[in-house]
């Protein structure tokens, strides 16, 4: 899967889960910029898994802080 496709799909998931209409940038921090709380962080991980059909190790996934970090993390699993 091309990186740009992953970026777009990650942003779509983030917008849906966090119910955000504002522009989401690659550097957006889920907590600091987008206001995700701990429950929403868990929901994001679940939504990424469903969107990409992958298994994400939860503790590691919750360490991911930004959109681009999430893209890297997902890309690594897909391309493994």
């Amino acid at each position, binding site marked *: 899967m091309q990186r740009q496709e992953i970026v777009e799909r990650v942003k779509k998931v983030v917008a849906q889960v*966090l119910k955000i209409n504002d522009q989401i940038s690659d550097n957006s*921090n889920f907590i*600091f*910029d987008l*206001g995700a*709380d701990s429950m929403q962080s868990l929901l994001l991980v679940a939504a990424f898994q469903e969107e990409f059909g992958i298994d994400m190790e939860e503790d590691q996934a919750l360490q991911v*802080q930004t959109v681009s970090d999430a893209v890297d993390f997902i890309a690594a699993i897909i391309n493994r």
Partner: protein
Amino acid sequence: MPHPNRAKKRDFDSIFYPQSIAVVGANKVTGTVPHDILVNILKSDFQGIVYPVSPREKSIGGLKAFKYVSDISDPIDLAVIVFPSSVVHMALEQCGQKGVKSAVIISAGFKEVGGEGIMRENQLREIADKYGISFIGPNCLGVINTDPRVKLDASFARKMPQEGTIGFLSQSGALCTAVLDYAQAKHIGFSKFVSFGNKADITEIDLLNYLRDDPKTRVILIYLEEISDGRALLQTAQEIISKTGKPILAIKSGRTAEGASAAASHTGSLVGSDEVIDAAFRQVGIIRCWDIEEMFNKAIAMAYQPLPHGNRIAIVTNAGGPGVLTTDATIKEGLRLAAFSETTTDILGKSLPKTANIKNPVDVIGDARADRYHIAVSQVLNDPQVDGVFVILTPQSMTDIEAIAREICSVAGQSEKPLYTSFMGENDVAQGISILQRNQIPHYILPESMPKAFNAAFRFHKQSKAKIVDHGDSCESPHAANARAILDEAVRAGRHILLEDEATPLLALYGLPVLKNGVASSAEEAAVLAKKIGFPVAMKILSTDIVHKFDVKGVHLDIRDEERALQSYHALLTEVSRLRPDAEIKGVLVSPMIPKGEEVILGVKRDPAFGPVIMFGLGGIFVELFRDVQIRVAPVNLDMATEMIHQIQSAGILTGSRGRIPRDIESIAHCLTAMSRMAIECPQIKELDINPLIVGIEKQSSHIADAKIML
């Protein structure tokens, strides 16, 4: 680790008297810390302006919310940061860029969780240093200032306390909420209330210094879990107490015998970290308390009432039994029952019923009403032979409890002497107690608590009047560099213990009374050495593996000729090898016999928080069984050393009580000061034992019979 020495200009006004606050990371979810802190600030009727900062919300609680702190156009004095720990550094960085002066970081997940948390905390410190921000926390409950000029409750406590004169500092946030609840029930108010958490930037020392100068604070309470810089704490406390007369009451939790059980020296085993804290606090006048109740019992006495100028107590009661109980407790605390003046006795005799007891304790009889309490209490308070009054009440059917409470408040308000009360019971006396508490008359459920609180206040008053100790000249000893060079060499050689033969020359450099001795590696050498030293001699086994030489028959005394010296050498090696086959024996030390005297022990231990501490005790059973020792944080001057000697329980043995011959106390004091100086000038010394010092009866007649130094 905090950096107490970092020279940073603190702007405490921006923390305690901010004109604008940003709550960074606020949300709308009731029952969460980010929400409740914002609500508390608003509920407390904060006199400045509040700006919620929330990445998602447009408004919170009717206030416009900002996505970033940098979006706020007005200047911000204080940021209260409530974001999760992973992004607190981002929030603090933005605060720095915005020019925010100070922060309170509530968030947990830093040093207290270890690992990555420690790195996160270091990162906060770096950012704060870069921008010159001072911050409290992280991992704390927050900050409260009851001053009507600001009315600030930047905490997630349930209720804001009432205004008062007690400043409370706590390392534990959870304890704060319990304290606030306890204090509210007793109508105890606070000036400032600070939970300082991990003290990554602002430490307890900074906060103590702030409260020193805070005109709203009369008494300082502090709860500590960890003391990072004990010497700075002592210096600060001493300055506060002697310069402002503000009492400091402290609870230090986490008592531990750490390091005591496996110690290689007597001093090490006798001076645990808790004993050091105890001694250090006492040394500067910090009143150590063991629980919250004791702390507040003593605090209200000192915050509400004048400090006692003497220890003569008058007791006024309407019940005989409690009067006797209180009398017993008063005497037990070392206070005295006042002997009334003739005027007082006359007036009480004329004014009280015939059945009343007009002597101390004054019993106004069970049917006493407010008028009788008024006469008795006002009379004894005015008596020049009385320094303080305890008033006891038990509720009989005719006792007008509330009227009596009001009468006591009125009488106490006109006096410059302390008055404490105990209305005994629960339900019937509740209203009366409430009147007393609201009028700042110290009240105690148990009458026996009154003498304890009074004694603490009395002792504090005496100590606060004492001058700050002058530790003498600060010039280094002439042989300090030489001593350090010898110790450095030993450390480089991987040595951990210097036995008597090596310790002796070092002690001699500091003028300590050592004996001329020598080490023998054969029986023949021992005999020659003994002859050279002069009979009689003592012979002792030298081994770093043996702490208690007597236990392994490693000491022979009073050897009077060469033949016996030869025999003793062989006997020592045979017995010690049999009892401690594992011990590596360095040789046999031969030294002159010391004339008989009292054995005392002197020691040094380097405490991780307080640095070198000096210990003194009587030798033998007194130190082993009763742990009858005195401890002081170095430096110890001659006055302090003399005080240490006189304060051991068994001091009479040295001072000549019950027909004993007085010993040369001055020489012990000189040894203690020399040892203190050595400990300060030679940081390589971890522990030092002089055990025993044999103290004779004439001047300069003390001699060190054994010593060792741990590196």
